[in-house]
């Protein structure tokens, strides 16, 4: 029913993340189009938060830049409304629970639906606490994306059973950010999911290069890349189009050898 399904129909999905409003809204809006044109299948837009506890230094810095630039949740709703006039690419908001809760869960999700957001990822809203928002998500047709981590073990079955859209498989302990190696046995995490559900599984945290994209793509339905892209944006600022285009193209190809 949601556009998110479409992301997993063209081989292994490439899911790209960027922080909304970093360095400004116009750049974010343009880069989303650039990513789509170069092979991204789904785009995660981070709503910047003052205290992003699941992020490493690269995305922390992006959140700070975006907030310093004055980016607000309403600005990002506006941006998504504009984008939706000309694109059907699945769009997901990634943010922390307080920006959602403080905005009002109902008002936030209603705006998501009206603007054309397909799902939300809230890393500090674990499965046990997600009851307070899940029904409202459904009411407005927004997928609440569940996450599993290397520590989840016997929790995987329960989390997978209620998963919708796709399942976000966290590849490593710790926070987001580029890693030389992913040492977790992600394949066996996904095997546990497969016993319960056919939900598409995408792997994120730490993926920054072609080799990792290839390896992670081989054992899952898609790869998620955040920090590596945000780092390019940090380096090139409003001039990031070419660098991001090359990178996205290369990663989509790497995930689909």
């Amino acid at each position, binding site marked *: 029913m949601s556009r998110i399904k479409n992301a997993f129909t063209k081989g292994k999905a490439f899911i790209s993340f960027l922080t909304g409003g970093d360095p400004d809204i116009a750049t974010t809006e343009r880069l989303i189009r650039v990513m789509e044109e170069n092979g991204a299948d789904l785009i995660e837009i981070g709503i910047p*938060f*003052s*205290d*992003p*506890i*699941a992020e*490493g*230094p690269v995305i*922390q810095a992006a959140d*700070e830049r975006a*907030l310093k630039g004055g980016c*607000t*949740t*309403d600005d990002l709703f506006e941006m998504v409304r504009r984008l939706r006039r000309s694109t059907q690419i699945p769009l997901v908001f990634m943010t922390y*629970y*307080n*920006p*959602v*809760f*403080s*905005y009002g869960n109902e008002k936030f999700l209603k705006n998501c639906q009206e603007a054309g957001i397909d799902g939300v990822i809230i*890393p*500090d*809203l*674990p*499965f*046990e*606490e997600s009851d307070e928002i899940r029904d409202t998500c459904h009411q407005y047709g927004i997928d609440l994306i569940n*996450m*599993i*981590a*290397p*520590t*989840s*073990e016997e*929790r995987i079955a329960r*989390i997978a059973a209620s998963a919708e859209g796709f399942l976000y498989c*966290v590849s490593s*302990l*710790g*926070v987001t950010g580029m890693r030389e190696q992913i040492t977790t046995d992600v394949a066996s995490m996904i095997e546990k999911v497969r016993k319960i559900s056919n939900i598409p599984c995408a792997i994120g945290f730490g993926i920054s290069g072609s080799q990792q994209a290839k390896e992670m793509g081989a054992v899952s339905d898609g790869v998620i890349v955040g920090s590596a892209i945000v780092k390019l944006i940090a380096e090139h600022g409003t001039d990031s189009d070419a660098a991001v285009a090359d990178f996205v193209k290369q990663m989509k190809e790497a995930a689909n050898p």
Partner: protein
Amino acid sequence: MEQKKGRFGQFGGQYVPETLMPVLKEVEEAYEAAQKDPAFQAELNRLYSEYAGRPSRLYYAEKMTRDLGGAKIYLKREDLNHTGSHKINNVLGQVLLAKRMGKTRVIAETGAGQHGVATATAAALMGLECEIFMGKLDTDRQALNVYRMELLGAKVHAVTSGTQVLKDAVNEAMREWAGRMDDTLYVLGSVMGPHPFPTIVRDFQKIIGREIRKQLLEKEGKLPDAVIACVGGGSNAMGSFYEFIEDKEVRLIGCEAAGEGADTPRNAATIANGRLGVFHGMKSLFCQNQYGQIDEVYSISAGLDYPGIGPEHAMLHDTGRAQYVPVTDVEAVEAFEYLSRTEGIIPAVESAHAVAYARKLAPQMRPEQIIVITVSGRGDKDVAAIARYRGVEIYE
């Protein structure tokens, strides 16, 4: 007072990334087992008595009582504990728990450095590795405490993310724990964070109120009319209040840091200015903007300089069982000087917030009534800062 596990009314909960959920469960189970284990309790009581110097004194402040001309005033002397504050009560419990869980390393956040020093102390005592996260601005302001922690064998990380103060130190400690939990326990310093921490820290601090009750019954044969304590996250206040929650005739008063005034932009008065939110793993009240971005807060006291409040306090406020009042920098500094001159006791500037409110309240009460003020820590750490506040340029 708890309904569902980890909930205090609508407050509390476990709002952390999935990666941390299993270790929170592990801590909860280990803590419940420890609570039921007489050997754990005996060891903790031995440490409280032999190492920390408990029970702390309940001291009748006769000169202050006479000077204020109202209620009789007692001071609960947590400042006399080893390491100079109530923080030792909690860390002895948690570090002992860490050891019992087979952890070999503890991490902690600290603002002014009191909790960091206490954690480093307990880790040294029990032979655990210790790493402390402290905002870069705080490491500059409290250089002496940084050295003290290092002296105790801890590694201190100056946190340069965000606003470089206490809340950022908590963020960084949580990030660190999410990356390494097999051998590591995060020793949270206040009645905050995700379940089970608000309960664990309160349980280890409730000895304050339990002693107050026993000591006052011995001295006066009755319960206090009011218990007053300062509130940042709220651990010494929760510890002071908990024993009296069912005794409705005992007024419970938390004093929060109003900085330059609760109606100015520079304050840390969460009850006065905060609203419902979710941060640092808990649903509670937080100082935040309309989009839910957490505010930078301010107080002369680094220990009260926190944009939130523990969930159990939020509930006590909601139900009206406890009352929370704002106290400004000016009032706290005057109380700091007042208690020093009147009783010869230099309180922590945090505790001075409680003293300040008692100075207002006591004259309105009758001589047969009793106020207990929790002096949560000693003020040696604050002397240089207060001197500078008064225009005397001395540095530690």
